[in-house]
């Protein structure tokens, strides 16, 4: 050990230091997220392939057009989902603020921002639960599609199958992200990071949370906009 420390080596890969200049856990979080990106990518590309191979497809604006407490027969496409999108973006911002506060060893600010992030995550999950419930009451579920294609022809169940599978998989990620953030909050409140002398764990949780937001950018575009 002593020899490597005294040798005047500056190259990244000569040993004795982290070649990527990040700690092990953070690097592994990046690799995990990369594999998760391939999973989501495979889902979305499969959806795209099926959509490209089919003559008709339901119009998202005719399917996702309601919101909670809306009057019967409300026609408000894109409204509810844009609220969901902004909730997730804002919760991502509060997560960045929590990570930044962690760098400054500011326990109070970390706590506040983590609580906001958790609230954002729960709000998003509630919105999704409402939407799933609403669609289910309209007769949509895995294997059942009450909606017609945009051109008025009969639609296959591919639309609902992909919608529920992919938003469900994403919602499960949001759920696990909320759980991770709650654990981070408990660890912050019990001074575990203060004892360690750093808040790097928050940074890893933050990476995961931003990834969830990132995936929603793609899911939102592929299912609701295009």
């Amino acid at each position, binding site marked *: 050990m002593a020899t490597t420390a005294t040798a005047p080596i500056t190259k990244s890969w000569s040993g004795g230091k982290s070649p990527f200049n990040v700690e092990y856990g953070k690097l592994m979080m990046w690799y995990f997220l990369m594999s998760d990106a391939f999973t989501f990518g495979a889902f979305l590309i499969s959806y795209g*392939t099926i959509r490209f*191979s089919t003559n008709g497809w339901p119009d998202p604006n005719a399917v996702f057009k309601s919101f909670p407490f809306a009057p019967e027969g409300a026609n408000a496409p894109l409204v509810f989902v844009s609220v969901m999108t902004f909730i997730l973006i804002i919760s991502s911002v509060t997560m960045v603020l929590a990570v*930044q506060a962690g760098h400054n060893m500011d326990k109070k600010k970390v706590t506040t921002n983590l609580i906001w992030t958790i609230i954002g995550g729960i709000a998003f999950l509630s919105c999704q639960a409402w939407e799933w419930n609403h669609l289910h009451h309209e007769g949509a579920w895995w294997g059942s599609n*009450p909606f017609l294609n945009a051109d*008025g022809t009969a639609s296959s169940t591919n639309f609902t199958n992909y919608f529920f599978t992919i938003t469900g998989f994403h919602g499960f990620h949001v759920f696990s992200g909320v759980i991770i953030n709650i654990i981070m909050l408990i660890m912050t409140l019990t001074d575990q990071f203060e004892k360690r002398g750093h808040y*790097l764990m928050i940074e890893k949780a933050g990476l995961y949370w931003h990834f969830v937001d990132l995936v929603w950018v793609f899911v939102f575009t592929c299912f609701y906009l295009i």
Partner: protein
Amino acid sequence: MSNSTAHEEHAGGGSKEIIKVTVILTVLTIVELILGFWMIDIPLSSTGVRMAIKGTIVILMMAKAFYIVAYFMHLKHEIKNLIMTICVPLALFVWFIAAFLYDGNSFRNLRNTYDPHYKEQSTIKVEKKEHGKDEKHGEQHQDSHKEKKAAE
């Protein structure tokens, strides 16, 4: 063993950057939504315009993804080796998307050419249904579909 990486230098970051990226993400999302609302009123028959809008939305989506990964996930401020080890494998997606969408499109063309039944089925219009009128929607609707098809 001291945590040498615990005090790593973080170039960039800072509140100004966070505010800037938040504003950019918000504006990009609003532009996407405006395009989405605009597309509602464009008829299905004008394929070119719709495809152009969808293409623009995809470009905006990629821009949003870039800002989230580069600034919120801090990748832009990591050292180059790390950026490369993350981004180079993801370049597989270029082939992945191009090949599979091309394949899907080709499959549709083949079916429309060689499967007259499929082609005919996808041109029969179904009567618009009323949602929320009866209790057991899903099954009844599907049954009525089959009856209509059989009648035709």
